[in-house]
């Protein structure tokens, strides 16, 4: 067995040249491609991670937006409910006020109608009573009735305040008319009663008015003193009708 040293050296050189060639044409290009591919993969992963982060951020934003919308919806519903309750309360208040007004108006109308009815009834009753009394009195002795009020007239004239009586006494000088329902038979008694109450100075006339029914009226130029039954019946009728102004 022998070794050819030339061959050994050539083979060693050949192998080293092969190492250089493969490094130049195989390992370095493959390493570059692998590195490039790895960089692309890392870039893709980084982009995916960025996209994921972006998606997470978008998700968080949408979640926050959804929560905000839910809160807003809740607030709007709450406000709408509050507004509805306020409107309802206002409508109820208005309805109650309207109902109260209608009820008050109805009560007032009823009261007014009742009052009118009552007044009408009183008026009719008073009128009826006056008519009945007038009917009864018309059948009685009018002359007697006229004379019957002489004492009453005298008492009333004497009871007048002095100032008022002085005014009547002054008016008497211009004349007074004694009006009765039937002609006065005893004018002297009337003249004496007036002279006794107001004084002798004055002119006294007599006149008749059947509407007086009974009694008499002293008609001065500017005032009239009524002592007739018609006036009494009129006052009684007004009292029956509830007229407070009657005295």
């Amino acid at each position, binding site marked *: 067995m022998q070794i050819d040293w030339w*061959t050994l050296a050539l*083979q060693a050189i050949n192998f080293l*040249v*092969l190492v250089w060639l*493969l490094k130049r*044409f195989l390992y370095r290009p493959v*390493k570059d491609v692998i590195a490039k591919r790895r960089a692309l993969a890392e870039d893709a992963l980084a982009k995916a991670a960025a996209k994921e982060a972006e998606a997470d951020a978008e998700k968080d934003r949408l979640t926050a937006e959804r929560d905000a919308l839910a809160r807003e919806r809740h607030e709007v519903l709450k406000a709408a409910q509050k507004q509805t309750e306020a409107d309802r309360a206002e409508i109820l208040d208005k309805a109650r006020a309207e109902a109260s007004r209608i009820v008050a108006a109805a009560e007032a109308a009823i009261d007014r109608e009742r009052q009118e009815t009552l007044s009408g009834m009183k008026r009719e009753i008073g009128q009826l009573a006056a008519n009945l009394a007038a009917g009864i009195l018309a059948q009685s002795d009018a002359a007697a009735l006229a004379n019957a009020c002489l004492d009453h007239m005298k008492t009333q004239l004497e009871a007048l305040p002095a100032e008022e009586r002085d005014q009547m006494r002054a008016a008497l000088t211009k004349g007074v008319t004694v009006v009765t329902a039937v002609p006065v038979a005893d004018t002297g008694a009337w003249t004496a009663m007036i002279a006794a109450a107001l004084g002798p100075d004055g002119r006294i006339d007599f006149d008749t008015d059947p509407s007086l029914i009974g009694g008499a009226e002293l008609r001065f130029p500017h005032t009239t003193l009524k002592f007739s039954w018609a006036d009494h019946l009129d006052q009684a009728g007004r009292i029956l009708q509830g007229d407070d102004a009657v005295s």
Partner: protein
Amino acid sequence: MDINPLAPDILFHIGPVPIDRAVVTTWAIMALLTLLSWLGTRRATVHAGGLQAVLEIAVEALETQIRDVLRRDPWPYLPILGSLFLFIVVANLSAVIPGLKPPTAHLETPAALAIIVFLSAHAFGLRSLGPVNYLKRYVKPNPILLPLNILAEFTRTFSLMIRLFGNMMSHEFVLAIVVFLAGLLLPVPFMLLGILIGVIQAYIFTILATVFIGAAVSGEAD
């Protein structure tokens, strides 16, 4: 039968340098590997084509194997270790081509490869650890073992050479004997077995070289 089958088969001379058949075969293998590499990577893109994909798969497989053994970045060691494997595989498999004799079946080629492994292991070790730390490994675990450690450096290189040479040479001899005795068809199973042996021997040679370099760069005993 007076021709020595182990004698160099000189084809021609370049000046004083005799050119052996194994050298010419080696040049052809170098040309083939370089051409394939150039074709596969001349327009290397991220989206690999057929040949580029094959080359990438081969390189990545080698890278993974070296990384698993060395447990460090394999790229500084890949050119020499990867080239070892590819060259030995192609050289061993060249036996299946009629008329070709594998260069590894001649002593000079495995010897050259073993010497390169021997020198590169020391070179990587010195570069990785520095001269002092690198030389300290020869006196570990005990300075008494220094002669044995030095002797082991040579014996393991020698065994690396002889293992490859012996296997390939013996396979050639067996194949020649079977052809001589049994004719043309019977050697076919032996040739298929030769393919397996060629790949296994290339793997063993490369892995052992990787282990030697790994031991050198890490400062550990083999």
